C-alpha cells in the first residue's frame, strides 16, 4: 500500500516536473532551471522504481546488477557529455537519442519473450515500441555519423522506392504480429522486425542531406518518445506514458517549427529536395569570375568602414573561430567601427547553433541580430563578412524558383556595399548548390581557414 503510494506519487511529481521543465525550457530566462527540474524529476522516478516498486509483492530484484549498469551508463554518458566540443553538440544529442531508442527496442524484445499472454493491445505496443525504437536507434546513429562527416549522402531514386516498400513491409508485419500470428516460427518475429527496422532506419536517413539533419534528429527524438510511451503502456507505467507522449508530441511540433524556420515542409525535408535534379545546373560554368582579396587589404577595408556585419555559418563552428570572431569585433570597435552579427535561424547545423557558440566567446547578446533585422540594416552596411556560411546567404533562394532552397529566408549579404567571404574553397555548402554571391562584383573571396583568417585580420586591423 505504502509502496504503491510512494511509487505512484513519485511518478506524478516526476510527470509534473517534465511538463514544467519543458515549459521552462522554452524561455531563455528559465531554461536552465527547467532542465534541472526535469532532471530532478527523472532522478526521483528512477529512485522510487528502484527501491519502492512492487510487482505481486516482490521488490525489484538483481539490484546490484542494475546499479552497476546505471553506474557504467552514468560514467560514460557524463564523460561524453562533458568532453564533447560545443560544435559537436548536435551529433551528441543524436547519439543519446539513439541510445534511448535502442533501450526501448530491447525492452520490447525481452518482454515479448517473457509474456505468454498475447492480447492485441499488448502485442501492438510491443511491436510498435520495437520498430519505432529500432528505427530511432539506427537512424540516429546514421545522423550522428553524417554530422561527424564519416558518412556521406546516398542519393538514388531506387532507394526512395525501396524505402516505401520496406516501410509497407514493416507495417504489414506489425499487423501480422499484433494479430498473434508467427510466420517465422515460434518467437522469431520480433527479431526479424528488429533487423528490418534497423535497416530501415539507415535507409530512411541516408538520402537526407546533412543540412537537414537537425530536423531529422528532432523527428527521431519524438520517435523515441513514442517508443518510450509504448513501454509505458506495456507496464501500465504512468511516468513512461506521460513522459513519452509529451516528448512525442512536443518533439513533433518542434520538428515542424524547425522546418518552418527554413520555410519548407516536413515532407519536403524527408523526401529530400536537396541535391535533387536541376541543382547542379543552377549556375553555368565558364562565365563566373571571382575576386580574391589579401588579408591586409581586407583589414584596411574593414578598419575604415562605418558599419560591419559578421555573418557566421557552420565553417565558423568547424574552425572553432568564435573567439577569433569576437576578437575581430573588439578590434574593429576600438577603431570606431560599428559591428553586428547577422544570425540566420538555421546557420550551422542546428537552430540556435551560432548563438550558443558566440555566447561561449562572450559576444554580447544585443549584437546578435536575427535575419529580419539584419536584412534591414545590410543596405546601410559597408562590409559584410561571411564566415563559413554558404546556403544561408545564397541569393538563389530568392531569385531561382527551381532551386532546392527556393523560398528559404536568407540573409541578403549582397546588399552590403562590399562582401568579404571567408571560406576554405569554392566547394558548395550542404545544399550542394552553387552560390552566385561569390561571383558578384562587390564580393571578395578570402580563401582560408576561418580561425586563421580572422586571427590574422585582428592583427592587421590593429595596425591599420
Amino acid at each position, binding site marked *: 500500500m505504502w509502496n504503491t503510494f510512494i511509487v505512484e506519487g513519485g511518478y506524478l511529481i516526476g510527470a509534473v516536473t517534465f511538463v514544467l521543465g*519543458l515549459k521552462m525550457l*522554452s524561455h*531563455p530566462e528559465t*531554461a*536552465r532551471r527547467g*532542465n534541472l527540474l*526535469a532532471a530532478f524529476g*527523472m532522478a526521483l*522516478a*528512477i529512485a522510487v*522504481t528502484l527501491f519502492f516498486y512492487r510487482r505481486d509483492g*516482490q521488490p*525489484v530484484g*538483481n*539490484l546490484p*546488477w*542494475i546499479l552497476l*549498469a*546505471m553506474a*557504467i*551508463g552514468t560514467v*560514460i554518458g557524463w564523460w*561524453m557529455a*562533458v568532453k564533447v566540443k560545443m560544435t559537436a*553538440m548536435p551529433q551528441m*544529442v543524436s547519439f*543519446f537519442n539513439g*541510445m*534511448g531508442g535502442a*533501450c*526501448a527496442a*530491447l*525492452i520490447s524484445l*525481452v*518482454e515479448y*519473450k*517473457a509474456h505468454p499472454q498475447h492480447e492485441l493491445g499488448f502485442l501492438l505496443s510491443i511491436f510498435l515500441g520495437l520498430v519505432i525504437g529500432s528505427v530511432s536507434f539506427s537512424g540516429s546513429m546514421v545522423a550522428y555519423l553524417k554530422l561527424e562527416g564519416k558518412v556521406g549522402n546516398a542519393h538514388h531514386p531506387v532507394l526512395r522506392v525501396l524505402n516505401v516498400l520496406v516501410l509497407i513491409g514493416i507495417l504489414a508485419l506489425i499487423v501480422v504480429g499484433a494479430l498473434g500470428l508467427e510466420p517465422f516460427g515460434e518467437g522469431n518475429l520480433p527479431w526479424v522486425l528488429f533487423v528490418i527496422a534497423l535497416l530501415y532506419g539507415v535507409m530512411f536517413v541516408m538520402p537526407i542531406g546533412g543540412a537537414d539533419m*537537425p530536423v531529422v534528429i*528532432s523527428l527521431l527524438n519524438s520517435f*523515441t518518445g513514442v*517508443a518510450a510511451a509504448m513501454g*509505458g503502456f*506495456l*507496464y501500465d*507505467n504512468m511516468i*513512461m*506514458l506521460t513522459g513519452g507522449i*509529451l*516528448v*512525442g508530441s*512536443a*518533439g513533433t511540433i*518542434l520538428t515542424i*517549427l524547425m522546418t518552418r*524556420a527554413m520555410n519548407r515542409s516536413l515532407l519536403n525535408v524527408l523526401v529530400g529536395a536537396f541535391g535533387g535534379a536541376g541543382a547542379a545546373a543552377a549556375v553555368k560554368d565558364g562565365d563566373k569570375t571571382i575576386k580574391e582579396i589579401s588579408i591586409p587589404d581586407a583589414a584596411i577595408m574593414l578598419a575604415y568602414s562605418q558599419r560591419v556585419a559578421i555573418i557566421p555559418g557552420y565553417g565558423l563552428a568547424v574552425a572553432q573561430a568564435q573567439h577569433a570572431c569576437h576578437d575581430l569585433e573588439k578590434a574593429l570597435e576600438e577603431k570606431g567601427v560599428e559591428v553586428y552579427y547577422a544570425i540566420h535561424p538555421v546557420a550551422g547545423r542546428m*537552430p*540556435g547553433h551560432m548563438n*550558443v557558440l558566440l*555566447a*561561449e566567446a562572450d559576444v554580447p547578446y544585443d549584437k546578435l541580430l536575427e535575419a529580419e533585422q539584419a536584412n534591414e540594416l545590410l543596405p546601410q552596411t559597408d562590409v559584410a563578412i561571411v564566415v563559413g556560411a554558404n546556403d544561408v546567404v545564397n541569393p538563389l533562394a530568392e531569385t531561382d524558383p527551381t532551386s532546392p532552397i527556393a523560398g528559404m529566408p536568407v540573409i541578403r549579404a549582397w546588399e552590403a556595399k562590399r562582401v568579404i567571404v571567408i571560406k576554405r574553397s569554392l566547394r558548395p555548402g550542404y545544399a550542394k548548390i552553387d552560390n552566385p554571391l561569390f561571383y558578384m562584383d562587390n564580393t571578395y573571396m578570402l580563401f582560408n581557414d576561418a580561425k586563421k583568417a580572422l586571427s590574422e585580420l585582428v592583427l592587421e586591423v590593429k595596425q591599420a
Partner: protein
Amino acid sequence: MDWIIDYFIQNRDFIFLLIMMIFLGIEVISHVPAILHTPLMSGANAIHGVVIIGSILIMGYSDSDDYLSLGLGFLAVVLGTLNVVGGFVVTNRMLEMFKKKRSK
C-alpha cells in the same frame, strides 16, 4: 466493430491520457524562439530517457538464470542511463552559455 468499442471502453483512461498529453505537448512547445530550438530538443531528448524505467523493470523481474533477458536488460539499462545522464548534462552545458550571456 465490437472489439473496437470494447477496446475503447477498456482503455478509456489510457486513451484520454494519450489525447490530453498530445495537446499538452503542443501547447507547451508553441511560441519558442529559434535560439532555444536546440536546447529544447536536447531537453526533450533527456526526458524520453524515462524509458530506462522499463529496462530497470526487465532486469528487476528476470529470473536469475535467464541470461538472455538479463544480458539484454543490462545493456538496456546502460543505454537508458546514457540517454538520461548524457541528455541532461549536454542540455545543461548548452544552457550555461545562455546564462553567461545574460549576466553581461
